[in-house]
């Protein structure tokens, strides 16, 4: 994914919180997805205003991480895009 692109989650997602993650229902394609906590954090940042390469830095700040989780975020964004949850 191009780091300067600001990904945005698709419309029509219904998010259901569980103890160990989230169940997302995608009405348009009638699909159910399971996302862990990290994936949901990334998904929530996909609001069309935050560039992809800013997300690791924001997560580092928010969770006081030693390093920005660049590789993990890139992998997560790829999966979210592959699943059709962001564009």
């Amino acid at each position: 994914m191009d780091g300067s692109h600001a990904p945005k989650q698709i419309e029509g997602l219904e998010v259901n919180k569980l103890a160990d993650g989230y169940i997302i229902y995608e009405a348009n394609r009638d699909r159910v997805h399971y996302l862990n906590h990290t994936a949901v954090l990334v998904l929530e940042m996909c609001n069309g205003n935050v560039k992809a390469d800013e997300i690791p830095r924001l997560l580092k700040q928010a969770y006081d991480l030693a390093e920005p989780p660049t590789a993990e975020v890139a992998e997560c964004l790829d999966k979210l895009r592959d699943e059709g949850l962001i564009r």
Partner: protein
Amino acid sequence: MLERSIQLLACEFHVSTDAEPVVRWLDGVRPSAVQDHPVLHRHRLEVRREADGYRVREDGQDRGVMADPGEAGALVERRLHELAFGALAERTKIHAGCATWKGRRFLVVGQGRAGKTTLMTKLLVEGFSVEGDEMVLLRDGRVVAYPRRFGIRRRTLALVPEVGALVPHLSGPPDSDEPDGYQILALDPSQLGLPWHIGSGPVDVLFLLDRRHQGPTRATACPDHVMVQGIMAQSNPPSTGRAAWVRDVCTVVRGAAGYLLTLGDLDTAVSAVRQCLEAPAVNA
């Protein structure tokens, strides 16, 4: 005229007939359960003997002529269930047994022939308040068992001999375990001298039947997302749509402790279920 009143949750049915075999059929399948659910719809069904068979009417509408009383009884039974389910179509239907023990409500979810009925029958004779063996209706985190007699196989009678001893007329040689052929016996807890009360409420503990094995039964904590997946595989969406289905299932999972139950021998299954129900409650 012979008459029967039958409540199936939101529906109350008044059935009248001049054919005694039809009443015998209905008496063999109607549940004696006392139900808390308010009656919202009332229907009248009638079976009349005629020259060419048995005419069935439903709320004054002709439903056809059946060749014999067994067919007429089967049609009436089918319509009772269709109307009862139709009246609560906005609820998610889950293949699950439902019971309470010391005030805690639990579900045993599993596919057909996973051992639900056998386990629920064993729990029944062990003093649990078993409300249903097969189907529950869910909405907004609250469940109610669908009132249906327990569909036990003769094989279950061998596994739960207490039942066979109390209802010897149901006993007989076990059927073969061929996938195409076994007899379902419609067991009413009252036949065992046990009360049958169907309430409703939130679920405290969920058991997902994992698989069967020969050893002792094991209960292990089940991650929520696995439980959601397991329940969705064993349920049907409500008429309000699939988003509501996912929401319903997530709500009930969120409020309950979840366990995978690897079903082995039934005595250890009872102990495992009790142990899980005695564990501290999960906050929704």
